[in-house]
């Protein structure tokens, strides 16, 4: 395990912050210290849990003042975060894979209660069989429930986005929980140079958490979440919907503010568009696949191919306007899903379905080709990305949509009628398994 750098107290740090070489999880822990988070609830599961390891060490060393509760399950962990948030404490939780699933009920009510808890999901494949590697299905499971969802690419982005997440989630116009997704192992446990800002700047950027008239305190005798049925549920859902719609504007505003306060470069709040200006083709994905994608784009650009990469940062709210303007002009786009949605539209992943639906109303839309790659932590290589781009160009050259989902980097035939039709008595095309 990477040990957290022992940072000096605020007074001793430079006004502009300092740099450290830390992992993605440690970067989030640094942000939590700067945010003066009040209650953290932890339960062990790899790979997210090294954020809790880092935090507990900071508390033990007196660098952070917070209640750290070790829960007896993820369900309790998330309930503890929810109820701490309800009394007005800034709360943090997190999990990975099936752990995130175990606490699903508590996650759902955190969102429907409109409590701005922030979570780290160290993306991990769902059991069975047990696997440590990254898949995005865990965090995606809450995509319909009112959680703001973000996928980070680097440790720096993890730290920055943790600050941004509290600022957006706790905004009175939003009041929704936010889950930060980070590719397990590839980012949770890899070290980057990270600029750690000064605490005073963070306090300027994120105002104190104020739950207002819902604060659970004897001075405010409210009944929280009484039972209601067909008489009011639909109105409550509509309010969550409105909050999610408003979140777009709040994110844009907060991101602009972030750049101003911390002196960072201009960038789009919702998507990370790489070399897309004159691109004829685009590859699209989330998380660390962006790093590989950008290297592949550079290599293909050097060979004269006009390719760009689009990395979706905020998955909820979904960046439809950005995708519209970025992808409306390209000929073909390959969607790289690090997740699956068995039996879904074209048997593609979740991202494919969302992007295809987002582009459907456009008068002119590119050829959209779904891919599934890198499941269970399998590496997605630069060669894989080039292979994906080759397929996109071949399909586009045929001049019509072909939504057949291709699995990249999987052993066995890409398409085997025996598997795909269930007619296992027929011999495979081309003989034995490749």
């Amino acid at each position, binding site marked *: 395990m990477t040990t957290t750098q022992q940072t000096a107290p605020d007074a001793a740090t430079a006004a502009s912050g300092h740099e450290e070489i830390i992992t993605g999880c440690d970067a989030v822990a640094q942000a939590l210290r700067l945010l003066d988070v009040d209650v953290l609830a932890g339960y062990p599961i790899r790979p997210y849990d090294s954020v809790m390891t880092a935090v507990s060490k900071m508390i033990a060393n007196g660098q952070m003042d917070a*209640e750290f509760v070790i829960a007896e399950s993820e369900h309790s962990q998330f309930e503890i975060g929810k109820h701490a948030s*309800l*009394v007005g404490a800034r709360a943090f939780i997190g999990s990975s894979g099936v752990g995130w699933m175990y606490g699903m009920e*508590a996650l759902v*009510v955190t969102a429907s209660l409109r409590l701005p808890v922030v979570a780290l999901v160290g993306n991990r494949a769902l059991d069975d069989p047990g696997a440590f590697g990254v898949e995005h299905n865990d965090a995606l499971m809450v995509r319909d429930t009112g959680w703001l969802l973000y996928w980070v690419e680097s440790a720096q982005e993890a730290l920055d986005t943790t600050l941004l997440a509290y600022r957006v989630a706790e905004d009175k116009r939003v009041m929704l929980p936010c889950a930060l997704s980070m590719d397990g192992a590839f980012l949770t446990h890899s070290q980057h140079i990270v600029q750690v800002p000064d605490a005073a700047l963070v306090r300027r950027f994120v105002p104190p958490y104020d739950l207002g008239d819902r604060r659970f*305190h004897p001075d405010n005798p409210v009944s929280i979440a*009484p039972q209601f049925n067909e008489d009011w549920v639909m109105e409550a859902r509509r309010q969550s919907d409105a909050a999610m719609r408003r979140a777009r504007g709040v994110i844009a505003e907060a991101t602009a503010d972030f750049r101003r306060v911390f002196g960072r470069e201009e960038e789009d709040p919702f998507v990370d568009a790489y070399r897309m200006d004159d691109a004829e083709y685009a590859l699209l994905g989330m998380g660390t696949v962006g790093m590989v994608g950008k290297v592949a784009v550079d290599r293909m650009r050097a060979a004269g191919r006009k390719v760009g990469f689009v990395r979706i940062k905020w998955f909820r709210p979904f960046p439809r306007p950005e995708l519209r303007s970025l992808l409306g002009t390209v000929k073909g786009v390959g969607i790289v899903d690090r997740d699956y949605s068995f039996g879904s539209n074209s048997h593609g992943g979740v991202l494919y379905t969302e992007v295809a639906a987002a582009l459907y109303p456009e008068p002119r839309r590119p050829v959209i080709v779904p891919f599934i790659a890198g499941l269970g932590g399998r590496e997605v290589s630069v060669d894989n990305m080039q292979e994906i781009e080759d397929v996109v160009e071949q399909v586009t050259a045929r001049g019509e949509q072909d939504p057949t989902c291709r699995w990249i980097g999987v052993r066995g035939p890409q398409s085997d009628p025996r598997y795909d039709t269930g007619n296992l008595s027929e011999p495979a095309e081309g003989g034995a398994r490749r």
Partner: protein
Amino acid sequence: MTAPELTIPDLEINRRLTVLPMQEYYTPGHRTCQGCESALVMRYMAKVAGPRTLVTGTTGCMYVANTSYNSTPWALPWAHTQLGSAGSSAVGTAAGLKALMRKGKIPDEPINVIAFCSDGGGGDMGLATLSAAMQDTRYNLLILLYDNESYANTDIQASGMTPWGAVTAFTPSGKQRRITHHRWKKNVPALLMAGHPTGRYFANTSSGFGMDLMEKVRTALDVGGPTFVQTHDPCPKGWDYDPRMSHELAVLAVECGITVLWDCLEGELRYQGLTRQQVEGKARRRPVADYLRRQGRFAHFADEDIDFFQSRIDEMWEDWILPGVLRVNQTPFGRFPRAASPPGNSEAPATPAAAVGGGRG
């Protein structure tokens, strides 16, 4: 009439409550059934807890029937929590308060944290959260488990705390099988007491003994740390009896030795009231038939079922190391008497046919 007391007088721990406030913090406006004893328990609990209290409550009767939108009975801050979250809601609430007070974000003052749960929510689904809450000595919290012996709000299904043999929606009595509820009632307060040496206070009480109940709730809140109180609440809908008989049934359960009034403060076990007289031999236990025969859920019981039930209760008083509380049979070393077996099971309790129980042959 004199003006009502505005605050609860300071009470010495374990001293009997002599003055009670007139104020109610659990008020009319709920939709609980006629004769609902659990609603009464809520009222007692809120009354002695007073206004500086936060209450969370799990899903169940005391959620669904109590707090319909726009008609809450709670004059205290109350929040719903999920069915299996009594312990975690209490810990989360207490941890949040503690952090905010320590950091000066809210005024530092004593605030009671109470989480209530039902036998299903606390004894079954949320048991692990109760266990975790009883371990965390950093926080002052009370878990109150109102035991009405079934999942009463979902149409009366058997829980781990439904008495052996009772008819519920999931354990009917049929032509082939007379008894289909095979589990003996789970003893949650003793389980928590025995397994959590750092818990400050554990108590078992009954809705039929209001003073005992209020004294125990107040004691729990006064001693601080993790504390637990369980109440035995007759339920007209679930137990199938005339709602007028709720109080009588609660008292009968104690008279028969089925419900035991005890508490354990800092490791010291004490019995109260009628139970204490029974333990000291000053009062006799009534036959359990007097209790069972008054409830529709036991109407299918044959004499041998009642005899079995009686033998289990006798064992709990005559053989247990802590009578009525903790089962470790008091036997000379090397002797292992067999516990009574359910009717029809005496020969081969492990065979599938016998394991379904009740059916003869």
